[in-house]
């Protein structure tokens, strides 16, 4: 029982990180029908930027902000330069471009910062809370992660529901032609979507790094977990990615805890395949017609 509680707690905190990754994937999928497999690589780059700033004795919060801004810029640039040319082509082309970009970014990071893992600080203590005199697998940093991701989700929700920009973004995602006729600059909205999505990824990158060391491919498996979370949540709704993230976080925590960490990836893969076979459009989706 004690173990179970610990696994549950660590599942919740890592689930929130997967939810942030899933949110990044969902934002892009909704507007451009592209799964951005380069997202992990982009988050890795922004986290390395933060790490480089920290080495030059910049404060944590300044580095944190710079990493998020770098995510915005990187996302916008990627959409403009790499994704727009393949828009309207076969979806396979966009996937190949994203994968090519991913390994390019990983090699770039390896060339600049070296392949050996480096530590990354957490802004809050990583010592377990004590409940009734015994340590539980939940730290102040975990609490911060949970709150930060919830805040991110809340801001996104407010943005989409209650602001004019959010309305424009939703319009260009769901009916680009009509939106264009109504005077929405659809292309600009797509760029903004990519920027916000990459920023969500960058946030996840900053939160993962203190637990595992920072290395060029440290986000690879996180991306897969985030992808699984997005699929479980249905790829369409930001709220779905939150639930999906929690489901995956808990599932992986239990699998890793009870079966051994070698099976974490396999567990995610199995869950992914099962969800795709049983409910290909996720747990929270309506029935969709396929266009002839």
């Amino acid at each position, binding site marked *: 029982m004690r173990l179970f509680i610990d696994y549950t707690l660590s599942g919740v905190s890592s689930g929130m990180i997967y939810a942030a990754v899933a949110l990044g994937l969902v934002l892009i999928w909704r507007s451009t029908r*592209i*799964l951005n*497999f380069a997202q992990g690589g982009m988050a890795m780059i922004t986290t390395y930027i933060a790490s480089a700033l920290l080495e030059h004795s910049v404060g944590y919060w300044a580095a944190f902000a710079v990493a998020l801004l770098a995510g915005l810029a990187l996302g916008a640039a990627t959409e403009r330069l*790499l994704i727009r*040319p*393949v828009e309207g*082509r*076969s*979806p*396979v*082309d*966009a*996937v*190949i*471009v994203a*994968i*090519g*970009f*991913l*390994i*390019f*970014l*990983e*090699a*770039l990071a*390896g*060339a*600049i910062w*070296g*392949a050996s893992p480096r530590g990354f600080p957490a802004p809050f203590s990583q010592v377990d809370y004590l409940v009734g005199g015994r340590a539980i697998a939940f730290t102040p940093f975990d609490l911060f992660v949970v709150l930060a991701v919830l805040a991110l989700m809340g801001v996104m929700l407010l943005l989409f529901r209650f602001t004019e920009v959010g309305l424009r973004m939703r319009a260009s995602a769901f009916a680009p032609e009509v939106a264009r006729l109504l005077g929405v600059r659809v292309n600009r909205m797509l760029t903004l979507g990519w920027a916000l999505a990459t920023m969500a990824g960058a946030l996840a990158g900053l939160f993962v790094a203190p637990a595992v060391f920072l290395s060029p*491919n440290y986000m*690879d*498996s996180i991306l*897969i977990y985030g*992808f*699984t979370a997005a*699929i479980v949540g249905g790829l369409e709704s930001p709220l779905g990615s939150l639930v999906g993230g929690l489901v995956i976080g808990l599932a992986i925590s239990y699998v890793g805890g009870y079966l*051994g960490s*070698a*099976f974490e*990836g*396999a567990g*995610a*893969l199995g869950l*992914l*395949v099962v969800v*795709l*076979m049983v409910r*290909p459009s996720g747990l929270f989706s309506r029935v969709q017609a396929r266009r*002839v």
Partner: protein
Amino acid sequence: MRAARRLGALLRWPSQPLLRHLAFAVLAGIACYGLSVSVSDFANSEIATVALFAVAIAGLSMLTGGTGQLSLGHGALMAVGAYAYAELELHNPHVPLSVGLLVAVGAAAVAGGVLGVAAARLRGPYLAGVTLALALVAPQLADHFFNSDQGIPVGLTPPASVESNHWLAWIALTCALVIFVLLANLRRSRFYRSFTAVRDDEIAASLAGISVARTQILAFVLSAACAGLAGALLAIADLGATSGLFPLTLSVQLVAGMVIGGIGSLVGAVWGAVLVVYIPIWLDDIVNSPSSTLAANLPQAVFGLLIVLVILLVPGGIQGALRRGITVARGRIARAGKPGRAPTTSPGAGDTVTEVASMDGG
């Protein structure tokens, strides 16, 4: 006169696809043998690597170019072939090489079939995600089940008079030629046409009586079988099946080779294999400081950049660009030959016809 004509008929390039492909394979085999004996033993290990990459890339290219399914996990299928071969050899050291390779092909085909059943239900990006997950998970599982990262040793005993890498190259080249003849024939068959029918429009294909799911699974099995053979050859070349041989970057390298050579083209798979093997070697020579982090990461950076640039700028890859070049040249020659007609015919129409004709051959 009649004798001369008969001789001419005999020497003419055969019109039956199978005969033509076999004749081509014999010529290519002779050329490869000539190349192999005229270069060093070390260069022969590079030739063997090119041959096994050509097999894997050709298999992947038939899948993506055929049914339009993109797999980012073919490195994992190569691992299946490699570990199957190594396990078999570990427990039965006297099994002939050909049997071992066939077992590797069979094991990978079964794995590909299982994956194909899942793949047949998944649209493009979903499939890419699942296979990407597989490529990441496979090395971890291999480590867990097969003697951690030490892996399983594989031996190769060449005949007494042959140097080991020469022998390896001959085996790999023979496998590659056999696979290429089979795939070249497949491309001219009803099966492959049903592949492309499924790729272009699943609903139209199923209305025409093609079972979409069965076709996609078949394509996956075929492609996985090629990957399994390549994986077994890689294990033989590296004297063991170890998880370090099959990282995610291997799968991406296969995609790179396919994209650079030209998706769906067999000749393109050869171009791709040559570049995938030799670009790192050339870069090493250029940078000339093996310990620096730049040198360690340069090949991967170049592959990533090439994938992106080729898709954005030359979507047909090398083979597509060559074909277009040949078509343009032919059109010029034809127009130069008939100056009176040139202005009246629309160049676009003529180009399309020649393009279709030349695509048949590639």
